[in-house]
């Protein structure tokens, strides 16, 4: 139940400034699943018959956001205003900021680009996040501890389905993330990616002194959902070298929690040493401490609470910069940035909704067999003697007679002729599968035509132009 009065909301917003602004990063290219995204931008990939960008927008709307700043490309912007699902289902006001596809803008660059619009603390969400997390858990850490950064992580799910086009076992060389948290499991102490490490993990002594007990976790997925303070955006404006939030900004902030400069009260003396470097750090401290009022300080002094025990320091060890993480133990959290994740998400997502599995406008003949865990999109045509099990069929697709579809994902506008057998495959938009084809664990790219009586197993069939790009 949301306690957000619709009628007086606009008036109330005038009364005090907003607490949090939502920023949705939808300009990413989907570089890890080029087979799917070479024709369709990643935010518009259908998952459970809804465009991928719908999921984070739905999450924000459910929680109570009224407007979102969406940073995306022109194509997605067009879809946002024309696509049925996006236009009607999403009631928030979308402030779309277009960036050119050619400029290789990182997420931090994008924040710098929209810094004029940012008036308060921000919640940055990635367009490929599908989750049912209780967002207040993340934001409460941000609010209660007056944190600079608060992020969401989740236990990694092992993807068990066979991924089309993957030859051999999945390479276990996925670069691991090492995340160090304190005893409570909320305060983020350490973050490093295996790729950046040479020999082993390196810890500063100051961290060990302040937090002698640290839990290092590796099996965590970063959901790319961050609550950032306004001062961080100002810091980004001053430091143009930071390009990516996840890659550079977050590890920097986590490191800076224990930096000497921010914890001593006479930071001004240090700035004389190395002007340029200190200026950058100094900026961050200034921007975050100027807001700390004397009264808050007094309240904290008088309060008999401490976040740790065993040493002589006050709460938070007197540090002004704090980073927190909420680690989801249960619940769903997927980042759809690889083919395996995409397939898994398609499998799981229909359970989220109470929508009827077969869209009312779809034409499904009586003699066809549509399993209960399949979903059929609007305006589809399913003919006789067709069996669809554990599959998703997209908008306006035509499935002719005697077709067997199992464990597959059929996107929009696909035509599947009679007698086909499709198993464990992904058929992209506007593809045509010829009569009697037998596809097992294949990925058919956008607009491709499969000749009749074809037999393909474990193949990726894409157009020649795609091959050229590689």
């Amino acid at each position: 139940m949301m306690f957000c009065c619709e009628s007086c909301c606009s008036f109330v917003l005038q009364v005090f400034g907003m607490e949090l602004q939502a920023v949705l990063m939808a300009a990413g290219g989907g570089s890890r699943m080029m087979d799917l995204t070479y024709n369709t931008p990643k935010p518009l990939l259908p998952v459970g018959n809804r465009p991928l960008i719908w999921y984070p927008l739905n999450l924000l709307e459910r929680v109570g956001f009224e407007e979102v700043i969406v940073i995306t490309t022109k194509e997605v912007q067009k879809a946002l205003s024309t696509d049925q699902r996006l236009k009607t289902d999403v009631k928030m006001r979308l402030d779309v900021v277009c960036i050119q596809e050619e400029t290789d803008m990182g997420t931090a660059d994008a924040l710098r680009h929209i810094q004029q619009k940012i008036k308060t603390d921000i919640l940055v969400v990635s367009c490929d996040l599908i989750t049912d997390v209780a967002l207040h858990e993340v934001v409460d850490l941000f609010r209660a501890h007056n944190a600079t950064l608060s992020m969401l992580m989740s236990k990694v799910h092992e993807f068990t389905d066979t991924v089309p086009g993957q030859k051999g076992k999945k390479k276990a060389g996925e670069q691991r993330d090492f995340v160090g948290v304190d005893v409570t499991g909320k305060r983020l102490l350490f973050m490093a990616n295996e790729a950046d490490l040479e020999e082993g993990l390196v810890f500063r002594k100051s961290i060990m002194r302040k937090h002698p007990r640290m839990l290092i976790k590796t099996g965590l997925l970063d959901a790319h959902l961050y609550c950032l303070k306004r001062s961080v955006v100002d810091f980004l404006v001053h430091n143009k070298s930071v390009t990516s939030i996840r890659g550079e900004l977050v590890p920097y902030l986590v490191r800076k929690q224990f930096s000497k400069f921010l914890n001593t009260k006479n930071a001004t003396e240090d700035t004389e040493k190395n002007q340029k470097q200190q200026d950058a750090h100094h900026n961050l401290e200034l921007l975050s401490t100027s807001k700390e009022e004397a009264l808050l300080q007094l309240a904290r002094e008088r309060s008999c609470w401490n976040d740790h025990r065993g040493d002589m320091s006050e709460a938070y060890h007197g540090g002004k910069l704090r980073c927190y993480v909420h680690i989801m133990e249960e619940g769903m959290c997927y980042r759809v940035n690889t083919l395996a994740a995409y397939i898994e998400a398609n499998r799981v997502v229909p359970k989220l909704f109470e929508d009827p599995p077969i869209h009312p406008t779809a034409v499904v003949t009586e003699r066809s067999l549509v399993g209960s865990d399949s979903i059929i999109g609007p305006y589809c045509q399913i003919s006789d003697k067709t069996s669809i099990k554990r599959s998703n069929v997209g908008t306006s697709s035509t499935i002719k007679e005697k077709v067997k579809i199992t464990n597959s994902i059929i996107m929009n506008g696909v035509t599947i002729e009679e007698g086909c057998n499709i198993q464990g495959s992904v058929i992209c938009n506007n593809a045509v599968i010829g009569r009697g084809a037998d596809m097992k664990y294949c990925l058919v790219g956008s607009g491709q035509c499969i000749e009749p009586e074809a037999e393909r197993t474990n193949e990726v069939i894409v157009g020649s132009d795609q091959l050229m790009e590689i």
Partner: protein
Amino acid sequence: MADSDGRQVDSINNATDEDVKLQEIVLAKNEGKELTKEEKQRLRKEKKQHKKSKKDDKGPPEKEKVKEKASVPVPSKPATQSPAHKAAPVPVNASASESPAAAEKPAKSKAELRAERRARQDSDRASKQGKKEVGQQSASSKPKATPNELQPVVKRLPEHVQVDDPAALKKLAKKLERQQVPLRSDYGYKVSLFSHLHQYSRKNPPTQQISIPATVIHPSIVRLGLQYSQGIIAGSNARSVALLHAFKQVIQDYSTPPNEELSRDLVNKLSPYISFLSQCRPLSASMGNAIKYIKKEISNIPSQCKEEEAKGELQACIDSYINEKIILASEAISKYAIEKISNGDVILVYGCSSLVNHILCKAFEKQRKFRVIVVDSRPRLEGRETLRRLVKKGIRCTYVLISALSYILPEVSKVFLGAHALLANGYVMSRVGTSQIALVAKAYNVPVLVCCETYKFCERVQTDSFVSNELDDPDDLIVTRNGKTHLENWQTVKSLGLLNLVYDVTPPDFVDLVITDLGMIPCTSVPVVLRVKNVDQ
């Protein structure tokens, strides 16, 4: 009707008191219905008034009698007896007024009638006065509806001690819905003695149902509520200061809507915030006094004052309140308290009181030689924080748990206690365990000094720790040792209840001195201070 009238007049003129009553009863029985509750009450009251009738003054003139006649039948049930009711007093009074000077028997009956009349007049006057009082009283004291003879006695209890009353809960739910504040549900089995209090769980934060960019409730209030419920801001002074800070931000961001006055509208805007904060954690006495002060200041803003000016004035008021009542008060208290600390003293403190810590640090700065024994108790273990602060300062400290109190007391020369609130009957409300410390100290003849600022004095009266208290999260009592958590599934054991009390009251006999910013006063002088404060305001 005329027949019965005639019969009534006859019977009254001739019969005694008992006969009158008998006649009424007979009349009622003749009518075929049983006596109504009001009639029975009236009879009882008449008997009582008859005993007091000689002391009562003469009743007012006829008009009031008429009014009473009108008012008396109104509260009674609209049964067919009411005509009989009305018929009975009317001829009674008429007859009484007609023949004032009468013989013995009629005089007695007349006295009885007069007593009836006086009883009714008294009750009427009292109810009228009660209504006037309600109108006159400010928000400071709760309005007490004086008992009306023909109505049940109405006592207004605060909502937070009426959790087991479904009517009160419904009222609260309605009020919160109107203010768009989410209702926090109680958690777990409550021990029966305390089932009239709220018990919340930290795992269900009050922000679960609030939209994420908080729009209905100001973001700084949401943050404050979270910090209260998670215990990040704990302690009477800290909570008040944080509350006033949040109010400063609310006032800063406030803009008067058109056709409204700041003095009235801002107070209305604060009500849902206060409801939200009390849902997060019940308000403390100091917070209550601070809120009263703010509301008074806001309503005293003249209407022709410009908005910016008014806001600036309010911010200055808040700053001066904090400065006077908290910061300067602690300085004054330290000065008085240091007089009481002599070299070689062994001072016992309990839990974490910001004021007592301040006093001890100041005394140490003034080169007094003393050592401190810090007594601590579960589950909060606030003494560790006291220990940290004192040791950081350089004071020699000993740390014990409250179970070792009687072993350590022979060493102690003075006990310094902090207070959450000082009640109007001299009782000290403080962290649970304080009354035990005071009790054992009394047994060992160790002086107990309570340090409390005057802004924590409250007009409530309480003699035990049951009637009004706070229940903290019961899961705090669960402890994991060697990987085993024995109380993990306490909810499944039907007969098990976990009780985590927060406050208790210490009677004034155990407290030797209260050190306030007004000086050092005995516990029983608290109502005097309150009276003086009220006169000032």
